[in-house]
């Protein structure tokens, strides 16, 4: 469904130091720098697959997505989506895909969400029958009752995101590009959105590329992940394998009520950081509840949080260790 070979995207940026001195200097000799946002990326995705794209900010995920959506002209390389060349932006191509960007929306701001749907229906030439059927399903799946007639700017962030998704999928695209769709949403809403995407994928056998900062998004939806860093792919394969391999530990954050010396903490688990009353310990996944229990009963703990390491950290570890499978 999606085929990418040696895709590249370069930007030329003017380098200028700040201030008047910098302005004057650049007046006399301008320095340009080439930023390689995407530097030779290749992969293949079959129809119906849900793939997670992970990477730090600026790694090139969004740029790749935008090239696949046809928004950006690749500097080099080949990309094919559903048999089309994205950049040609043929009408039939655009009807096959959709791009959803968290924090940004295509819904018309001062109109009720329903009007945005009608606009999309007209633009995508969705027949009335299909439109009504799709709307019925989405209203149920996303619980849109009661919010469709309200002006978009009066909706909460979560309600807006639900409507945004509905509007983006109204034309039943076969390929979904989701760029951080759950960012800024509360946990319940995140779950809702995930369930919706999974249901859509099941129902329409849609191909999904998802980028996210939240491990939970990726673990819930994607079997396969692609890790991008500095414009390269450094991992492309099974998610569970990567997790176990490179983040065998969870982070246990402790807020102590009394200062506890480092050596004592280290007897439980490696200490990631210790700052006064706040400590972070790296506890192996399988032992988390056991260790946490011991910590709570044996140490003066005021508060405890257990979380997965940040994706950035997992990726960081991907470099430092040799655990990467090409």
């Amino acid at each position, binding site marked *: 469904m999606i085929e990418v070979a040696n895709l590249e995207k370069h930007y030329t940026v003017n380098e200028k130091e700040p201030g008047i001195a910098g*302005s004057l200097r*650049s*007046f006399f000799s*301008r320095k340009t720098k080439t930023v390689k946002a995407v530097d030779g990326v290749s992969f293949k995705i079959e129809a119906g697959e849900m793939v997670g794209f992970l990477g730090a900010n600026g790694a090139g995920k969004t740029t790749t997505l935008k090239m696949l959506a046809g928004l950006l002209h690749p500097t080099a390389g080949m990309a094919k989506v559903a048999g089309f060349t994205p950049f040609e932006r043929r009408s039939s191509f655009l009807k096959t895909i959709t791009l959803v960007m968290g924090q940004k929306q295509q819904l018309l701001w001062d109109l009720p969400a329903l009007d945005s749907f009608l606009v999309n229906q007209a633009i995508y030439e969705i027949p009335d029958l299909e439109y009504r059927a799709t709307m019925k399903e989405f209203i149920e799946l996303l619980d849109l009752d009661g919010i469709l007639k309200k002006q978009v700017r009066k909706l909460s962030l979560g309600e807006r995101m639900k409507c945004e998704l509905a509007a983006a999928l109204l034309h039943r695209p076969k390929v979904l590009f989701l760029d951080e769709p759950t960012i800024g949403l509360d946990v319940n809403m995140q779950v809702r959105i995930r369930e919706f995407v999974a249901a859509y994928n099941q129902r329409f056998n849609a191909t999904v590329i998802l980028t996210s900062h939240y491990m939970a998004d990726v673990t819930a939806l994607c079997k396969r992940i692609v890790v991008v860093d500095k414009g390269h792919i450094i991992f492309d394969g099974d998610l569970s394998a990567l997790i176990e391999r490179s983040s065998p530990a969870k982070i246990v954050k402790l807020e102590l009520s009394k200062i506890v010396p480092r050596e004592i903490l280290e007897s439980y688990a490696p200490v990631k950081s210790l700052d006064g009353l706040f400590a972070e310990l790296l506890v192996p996944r399988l032992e988390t509840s056991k260790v946490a229990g011991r910590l709570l009963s044996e140490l003066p703990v005021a508060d405890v949080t257990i979380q997965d390491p940040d994706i950035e950290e997992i990726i960081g570890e991907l470099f430092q260790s040799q655990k990467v499978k090409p």
Partner: protein
Amino acid sequence: MKLEAKIQMGLLENLWRKSKTMFALWFAHMTVYRAEIFIWMLSGVVPLIMMSVWIGKASANGGTLENFNAASFAAYFLAAWVSQQLTVAWVAWEMNFQIRQGELSSKLLRPIDPLWEHIFRHFTERFVRGPFILVVVIAGTFIVPGTKLTPDLWHVLEFLLVINLAFLMRFLIQYCIGTLCFWFENATAFDEFLYVLQTFLAGGFAPLEFYPPAIRAVVEWTPFPYMVYYPAKILTGTLSSSETLRVMLITLAWVLAFGVLRSILWRFGIKKYGAVGA
């Protein structure tokens, strides 16, 4: 020969690149002062357009029209343009923004009247615009041969005094309109009405000599001619000293009148603002 040509080409290319960069720099700098340029351009062009029209009329009439020839029209309208540039105020728009967005509350907490901040900002903008104004004036004097503004330094000083009084007057009028925002949603509409009146009555459209006597008599009782017409006459050296003194006094009177009005409106407005809740 080939090498010299190459070097020359290289230099030319270099020069071209520098000019482009310079233009881009100037342009980037200008875009930082977006709001000011916006207003500058908006209020700018009418006197310059009218200059051409009246010069056209003069030449169609055999060269002169009521004591004005092409050169004196050019001088008048350049002076009118400068006067307009130096008296423009946008405080009504600023106040509308502050009141609507609730920013006014934080300003009211300070021990000084927000008026001073507005005045200060307006004053500094005029310095930014100074070079542009100078460039246009100098360019303008070349377009029509024989154009000159007054060479007399005394007139220039008088002009500077009068134009600053005129600016204060216009600023205060706008401020009064701004206070109306406490009561009306659409107070800036009054500003637009004022703008239309100014365009046609202040002297930027035509020197008042060309207005029918009855209408001119009425207009002289409004503050409008003191914004553009009279300062322009002073700058072109066509106003007698007794007239100049009269203009100064009247402008000062208007400044005091609007100053008092704004104090009254401000006091009542703040009360309303506080009552409704910031």
